């Protein structure tokens, strides 16, 4: 599966660039990030980026373009 450019860019972020990503993405979404939330949000986003790396790397390159309607 070809990883989309936005996802690739996110996965490639170093930890110290996550804050800048968060601010830019929040602005793009029109989502205010109150100052009280910002450190916690950045911590969580950093953790999510690392977790995303874990499973995106395990996706086969040959994965179909269509996502299966999941059934257990």
């Amino acid at each position: 599966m070809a990883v989309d450019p936005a996802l690739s860019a996110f996965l490639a972020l170093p930890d110290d660039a996550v804050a800048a990503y968060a601010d830019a993405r929040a602005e793009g979404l029109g989502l205010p990030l109150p100052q009280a939330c910002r450190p916690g949000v950045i911590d969580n986003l950093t953790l999510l980026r690392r977790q995303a790396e874990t499973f995106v790397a395990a996706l086969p390159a040959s994965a179909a373009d269509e996502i299966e309607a999941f059934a257990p």
Partner: protein
Amino acid sequence: MSFRSAAAIAADVRDGATTARAETEAALARIAAANGALNAFTAVFAGRALAQADAIDADLAAGRAVGPLAGAPFAVKNLFDVAGVTTLAGSKIRRDASPAARDATAIQRLTAAGAVLVGALNMDEFAYGFVTENAHDGPTRNPHDLTRIAGGSSGGSAAAVAAGLVPLTLGSDTNGSIRIPASLCGVFGLKPTLGRLSRQGAFPFVESLDHIGPFARSVADLTLAYDLMQGPDPLDPLCRRPAEPAAPRLQAIADAPLRVGMLGGWFAQGAFPEVLEALEIIADALQARRGVELPGAEQARAAAFCLTAAEGGELHLEDLKARALDYDPAVRDRLLAGALLPHGVAEAARRYRPIFRDAAAKVFEDFDILLAPASVCPAPGVGQATMEMGGQEVSVRKNLGAYTQPISYIGLPVVTVPLNRPGKLPIGVQVIAPAWREDLALAAALRLEQAGVVAAHRPPERP
């Protein structure tokens, strides 16, 4: 407190040994006496409950048939719609929402069977957490040790059953929210196959992963409630399967050979020694083969973690824009982070699902049941932010479900069984079955219960 089963209460009501009103009044009195210490209930529906109880007693007096749970009290996590009541889902921002027009499907089905709804139960805000330390409603305390958490997000549901306030409750499980509190509070919990029970009227968290299910003090009550809630629901597109009652065949399955494996790899890393000891005891009792690998579990956990944040963040985006500071801070920051993820993260997490499902199906070719720890540790303390896992200091809130998340990610049915260790903090184990084979997990739980290996033991008496 009362530790009678729901089935026994209903039998006594039907036989005239007691009345539905007497049982309901007793449950309301227990809640009034104990909830100050436990904080399991966030609302009590005395008027509704007594009216329903009187109707059951009137039916019996008139010789009309009543249901298999007639007069048995139950309660639900406060994300279930209850007619005339605002569905809070543990939040502040929904406190001014309109009351629900009707009961959730699961409540309708239990009340149709005669169960009497007595109240709503505490939870992590919007079900995002494993601790039930709710910033708005306070923490639910573990009946076995009031200084410890009940687990979450269905903490009130587990604590109410463990404390003997009611014999039966409902919760929801997106990543472990039935299995973790069942483990920490020492009761039985069932997370059925994704799509087995209707989610209609349960406030959503992560559409791809949300399940509902019961808590009880015995396998019989758990199975009875599960069977009564089964069947297709046109209001939940995922819930289409005809009912397949488990109770009639449970004993036969429990008495027959079961091929049981104990998961290693991801599921053997980081757990506290007493958790691994509990797992060994249950594995011995079921003659499980050790060290079974479920390839991709770590990646599945990571994908569930990200899918949860992404879908949760998307669901709450408009409220986060308008009222972020009205959220529980511990939940808010996670939802905000999820909202900021690029869309490709959720898409990739959905792509990994069938890969991991197929890996699990391959393992189940050789096994009927797989065993894994439910929680990383026994109940942590109230207010405890971190714990040690695999030699690292990690967040309690984010990591208690490390072993439950891979399983709910692919929607497999799981019964959490409480190891019978009276006088000690409870520890539960996940009994995992292939998709749509809840009967296998329930039968294994029944075998363990009949052998005395698992039991919902009573919490200590308090003055």
